[in-house]
């Protein structure tokens, strides 16, 4: 077994553990931190079903962003939808036999690369050119876009310019998943692509990429607007204060 295979096998195990472990930890923290008060933001739905619909709109069409800024919305949506299609297309490396719907979306996923790259380029352009967005950007905000662009570009190189050995790559990943390792193809572009992907996986739980799980826990978006109908009591620490206050209050 080559050093390359061993290195990447270990790195992928580590990166996966980090991604899953630390993201799960964050999700757990979000879930157990109470939302003591009702703070849904207008237009706030008055039913659970309404909240689900609102969330669905935020997740799929970025409704608030659309209201807010059409260019950011356009680039952001191109990027995320492109990313989604690309990642779904990637499922073929990890499933055997490949699911029928994954086979079906292969051509879409292939060209979604251009959505992804165009979106990222647009977002980076805004970050560089609009003085307000430039002001709020830390180096990491630029580098994050650069990283995604580099991943997309190396992927596109393999897809459209210099193919890699997909069959071997697939058996490498299936091998990782079943703990019966097989060799990883020695292909420079692929090595770069995968190294960057590992970096992304390592960064995810410690960066603003937490917006992906975070959005589900945003009280302004996920609360039902019914404070008068249902008394909202969600936090231990508020009930503690309350009992101490009520007991000291004049009859």
């Amino acid at each position, binding site marked *: 077994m080559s050093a390359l295979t061993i290195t990447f096998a270990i790195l992928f195990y580590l990166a996966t553990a980090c991604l899953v472990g630390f993201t799960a930890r964050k999700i757990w923290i979000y879930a157990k*931190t109470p*939302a003591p008060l009702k703070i849904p933001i207008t237009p706030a739905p008055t039913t659970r079903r309404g909240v689900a619909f609102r969330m669905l709109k*935020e997740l799929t069409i970025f409704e608030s*962003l659309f209201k807010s800024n059409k260019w950011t919305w356009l680039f952001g949506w191109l990027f995320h939808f492109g990313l989604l299609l690309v990642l779904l297309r990637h499922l073929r490396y990890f499933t055997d036999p490949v699911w029928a719907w994954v086979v079906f979306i292969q051509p879409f996923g292939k060209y979604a690369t251009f959505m992804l790259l165009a979106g990222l380029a647009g977002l980076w352009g805004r970050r560089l050119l609009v003085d307000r967005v430039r002001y709020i950007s*830390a180096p*990491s905000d630029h580098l994050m876009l650069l990283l995604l662009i580099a991943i997309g570009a190396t992927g596109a190189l393999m897809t459209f310019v210099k193919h890699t050995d997909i069959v071997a790559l697939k058996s490498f990943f299936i091998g990782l998943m079943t703990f019966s390792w097989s060799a990883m193809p020695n292909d420079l572009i692929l090595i770069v692509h995968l190294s960057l992907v590992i970096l992304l996986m390592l960064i995810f739980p410690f960066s603003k990429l937490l917006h992906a799980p975070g959005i589900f826990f945003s009280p*302004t978006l996920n609360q039902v*607007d019914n404070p008068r109908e249902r*008394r909202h009591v969600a936090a231990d620490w508020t009930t503690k204060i309350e009992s101490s206050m009520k007991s000291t209050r004049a009859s």
Partner: protein
Amino acid sequence: MAVAEFDTPELKEYPVIPHLQKDVMAHSRPFEAKAELQEKLGFPGGLIDNWQQVAIEKMGELNKKYRSLQVYLDSCVKCGACTDKCHYYLGTSDPKNMPVARQDLYRKIYRRYFTISGKLFPKLVGAEDLTEEVLEDWYSYFHQCSQCRRCSVYCPYGIDTAEISMAAREVMDTVGKGQKYCNEIIGKAQTIGNNLGLPEPALVNTLEGLEEDVEEETGVKVRFPVDEKGAEVLLITPSADFFAEPHIDGLIGYAKVFHQAKISWTLSSFASEAANFGMFIGSYENMQKLALRIRQAAIDLGVKRIVFGECGHAWRVAYSFLNTLAGPFDFLDQNYPIPQHICEVTHGLIEEGKLTLDPSRNDDMVVTYHDSCNVARASRMGDKPGGQFEIPREIIKAVCNHYVDMPSHSIKEGTYCCGGGGGLLTDDLIELRVKGALPRMEALKSVVDEYGVTHMAAICAICKSQFSKVFPYYNFSMDQIISLHQLVSNAIVLQPEGNSSEGSDDESQVEAA
């Protein structure tokens, strides 16, 4: 500290997003609270020696107490969508007044002390140590946020800068750096019962005077009761309604509505304040203390309903928080919403035809309506989403023949703050208040020019005070801001004692149609 000279911004025909002018508002800061005021609320009297350590501990504590804070600090992607949404940025051009930049003043400290990336690579991720300069920036810029939540509407994750401002103010109070205006007022409300520090005899006196004035003007004895046990409704209204213009005309309006609908009501001298500045400083405990006074008053007076007068943030605390802070209200009549807004009461009565209205009495005005941020974005009225937009407008249209809306980007959920909310309604912040009013002034000017609008109605005590103060800077006159219930008060046709009910019902149905 002398109030700095400043130029009133120019009103443009179309809203323009300004270019950044760094630190132009760094000098804007409210007076600090003196030791005595601080200690009354349980905060240290002045900046404590180990303030850094205590501040960081407090930040850690707040992260565990508020999911909003924890999620918002992690989730912002710096997309920039909110950068042009804050009236204070639009009015001042100071980049630290962009919502995300304001959050970042707090976030960079959070990152430094609470995240792995910020501990290891502070420069890379924009993390910073908590230094004296940072604290000064906090004091300045977290008192340039009116907690209006406009940014939250436009953020893809609903990140609410108000939550972060509240947290920052709470941290500052904890280390002994409190704001005079808010903390002084909270102290008064907790001991005397209202923000003005108006004691019971003065309140009773004022209301008796009002009763006489109204009787003189209308020939009808409209009552303004205080502490009347067994009344049906306890009215909780901002204390500005007792003396300030144009607030007081609103109070007269509520009294006339109750009078004509034959609803017995009372004010409470113990809880003579709707406003709850505890919210502005992010202090749950202080907010709850004030809320519990209302509960106590309702129990002591044996009322069946609680109704709130025209006040924006008070309605947020009432609608969204009161049940949590001081509930359950199982001793009140469950057939009415608890609590209820005066606009809901009036609107319901208009729909039932119980008010006799003559809208032509307001024919000298062309009216527009300013959605107050806390009503528009942090609460609701009626039983449908958006009721807080429709109900006040329907009332105005029922009592007034000439109504127009301001441009759509400046109303309803997109409404611009008056510039004085969130505990900033103080003379030491006048420059900020004038500049922050710019987007609303532009929107108003556009309907004044196009439709000849003469008056703007509002249902918030802070908005009303703020506009009467800043209108003159923009060449409007201070009496162009009016209370919504002032319009109702003008239009309501009161019958002299004795011959009210039957006849008026038919008439009112015609009027309300």
